[in-house]
């Protein structure tokens, strides 16, 4: 069908010039059957989403390496402290609830933005940031306890080595996410966020935030469920 466009480009104008020799969708758009053009346009995904999907894909590979290392070394320590001795579940569960809830609040924020209610959007963004910040605070408190009460550092044993790097890298990603969310909130307070124009961008930011949450589910399972086996029952 659209071969007509090419032939027209070649024969019609004689020598239309090198760069335009193949005719164009814009100038000669009429030569392409509308159905063809529409079908073609329909399955080209947005480059922003593709880019973010690629980032998430490669970040997943990065976390996989640390999770593999954690599982590879789980239970191999010959000297303590071991996860069973020092990791406490209740505060971590509260933490996890906070982080996972922030995935819900950011969905509400985007829904508010889609409806055009910028104030509601700001409110839900603030909630998201506070929940994320609480998670970070919780991680910090946990680390402080481990360092102070159990003298567990990254150099103490394999548990310390793998625990601090895996949980630390997750916390680092939460921090980056929080910075971006705060930036968005500040821009919005300054009146720079326009619902129509920016919904897509903030949607991409929410992809990242959801990714950080999903990683936490894997980290939690690795560190606090699989890696925290009681003595004798563990790997």
């Amino acid at each position, binding site marked *: 069908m659209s071969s007509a466009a090419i032939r027209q480009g*070649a024969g019609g104008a004689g*020598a239309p*010039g*090198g760069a335009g*020799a*193949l005719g164009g969708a814009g100038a000669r758009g009429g030569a392409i059957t509308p159905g063809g053009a529409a079908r073609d346009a329909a399955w080209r995904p947005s480059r922003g989403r593709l880019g973010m999907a690629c980032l998430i*894909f490669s970040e997943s590979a990065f976390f996989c390496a*640390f999770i593999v290392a954690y599982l590879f*070394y789980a239970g191999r320590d010959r000297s303590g402290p071991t996860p069973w001795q020092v990791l406490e579940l209740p505060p971590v569960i509260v933490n996890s609830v906070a982080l996972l809830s922030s995935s819900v609040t950011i969905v509400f924020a985007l829904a508010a933005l889609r409806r055009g209610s910028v104030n509601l959007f700001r409110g839900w963004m603030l909630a998201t940031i506070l929940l994320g910040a609480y998670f970070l605070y919780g991680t910090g408190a946990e680390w402080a306890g481990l360092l102070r009460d159990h003298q567990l550092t990254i150099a103490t044993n*394999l548990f310390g080595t793998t625990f601090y790097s895996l949980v630390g890298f997750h916390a680092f990603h939460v921090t980056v996410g929080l910075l971006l969310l705060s930036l968005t909130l500040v821009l919005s307070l300054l009146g720079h966020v326009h619902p129509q124009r920016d919904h897509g961008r903030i949607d991409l930011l929410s992809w990242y935030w959801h990714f950080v949450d999903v990683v936490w589910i894997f980290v939690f399972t690795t560190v606090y469920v699989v890696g925290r086996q009681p003595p004798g029952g563990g790997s």
Partner: protein
Amino acid sequence: MSTLTSHTAQANDSIGDRGLMARLHQWTVTVDHKRLGIMYVGSGLLFFVIAGIQATLMRLQLIAPVNDFLTPDTFNRLFTMHGTTMVFLVGMPVLLGFGNYLVPLMIGARDMAFPRLNAFGFWLFIFGGLLLYYSYIGSAGLYGAGSTPDAGWFMYAPLTSRTFSRGNATDYWILGIMVSGFGSMTTAVNLVATIFSMRCPGMTLMRMPLLVWMMIVVAVLILAVMPVLTAAQVMLLFDRSMGAHFFDPQHDGSALLWQHLFWFFGHPEVYILILPAFGFISEIVPVFSRKVIFGYPLMVAATVAICFISLGVWAHHMFVAGLSPFLNALFAASTFLISVPTGIKIFNWLGTMWGGRIRFDVPMLFATGFLSLFIFGGLTGIMLAVVPFDWQLSDSYFVVGHFHYVLIGGTLFGIFGAIFYWFPKAFGKKLDERLGKWTFWIFLIGFTLTFFPMHISGMLGMPRRIYTYQPDRGWELWNLISTIGVPLQILGVLILVWNILRTLVRGKPCGDDPWDAWTLEWATSSPPPEWNFHEIPVCTSRRPLWDLKHPDDPDEHYE
């Protein structure tokens, strides 16, 4: 093509004669994928010269037994820097540079999806390369020990621990490669986004040139494995700087984990280095055989199959590490398996040439050279996949010969072919054919002299990475021949460099489409304007330019 009038003058206008500083500034701040592509290839070739000098020094040391031209320490540093440079600072940037230059042109786009990210990736690569080479100056650190990394390009633990690698050399290796790895990852993100979202009307996935298919698989592989290398490097950095125990056997850490993580990256990496060359060959062979590529869908399927299988073969680098027999068998089997899609490609290229009107211009010479040498390297690869055979010859010169056949005979011949084929695209001038043929034959002979005898010295028991050897082993002759090949290779490369410089200065314009090719990049002027196409092209088949030239017999009737 007479209808394709030249826009060379117009394109040159944008560069203009505005003084050196103005030009330099323009190239520095550019986000144009074509300029970035040229800078990628150019800086990759600079690093190639450095790595070549390192290799020459090593071959000079090995020319005779008990030679004392280099000290053992210097030799260790040379082979480490040679390997690291060739893989990360030559192979990656040159191949990604070609991808950068060609992909948007081939799919009818005006630039990459994220032009600024593209420039950022390039400068990260440069910065990473400089960081690695800064170790020559800065790595002594407070300890006053060490110069450049010296544990081999795969940096096995525990050689990289603080105990055995004092000074900061290993840290420079970690950071330099990590930074240039970030550059590769941004380029990979860009390639995926560009190829999926920026194709011109009519350019369906199954109409894309095969090089574009190869680049998308390369991008996916980079995204899958480069972060794993980064993670392993971060662990090593923690070990070295904070006393963590990831790879520290004295605290129950495991040297084997480094091997697993490194080769999980390292084996797909060799496919990252060879797939773009497959793409070059897939573009060159049809044009110079005057036939369509044989079995296009099968080529695509084979490429995707290589992508998946290559993620499951890494432990064949570790047969000598003492894995379980089950794992050995598994990884031997997956390695045999990956030779199937690779074989499919070889037969498809041969099938394309079969019955064609073959023109042996320089690109085609390199393509046929690629075919023969790559088959040879591939076959020794299959031999090494046989576990007992690998136990015998792992870490010997047989392995060195094998991977140089694949990476020089394969990748580098592909790159040389690509340089000759697309040089007219980038600069509007054809490289000299006669000098090109000299380069090809001299380099081929030098290559064979250097690398073929390595298989023999390897089978005679010569281990890789030794700085010298005793005279009674029967290795002298083979090492002598290996070293004799080196000046020939240097001469071949010098002729190529001379050819490029001479053509840039004195070459005559050759028109927009000197090879009578069929893919979209030749549909615009040579060199293309900054915006690539005045009007976004439309295509209806895999060879849009053939359709344009032969309106009476378009490809869409046959696809």
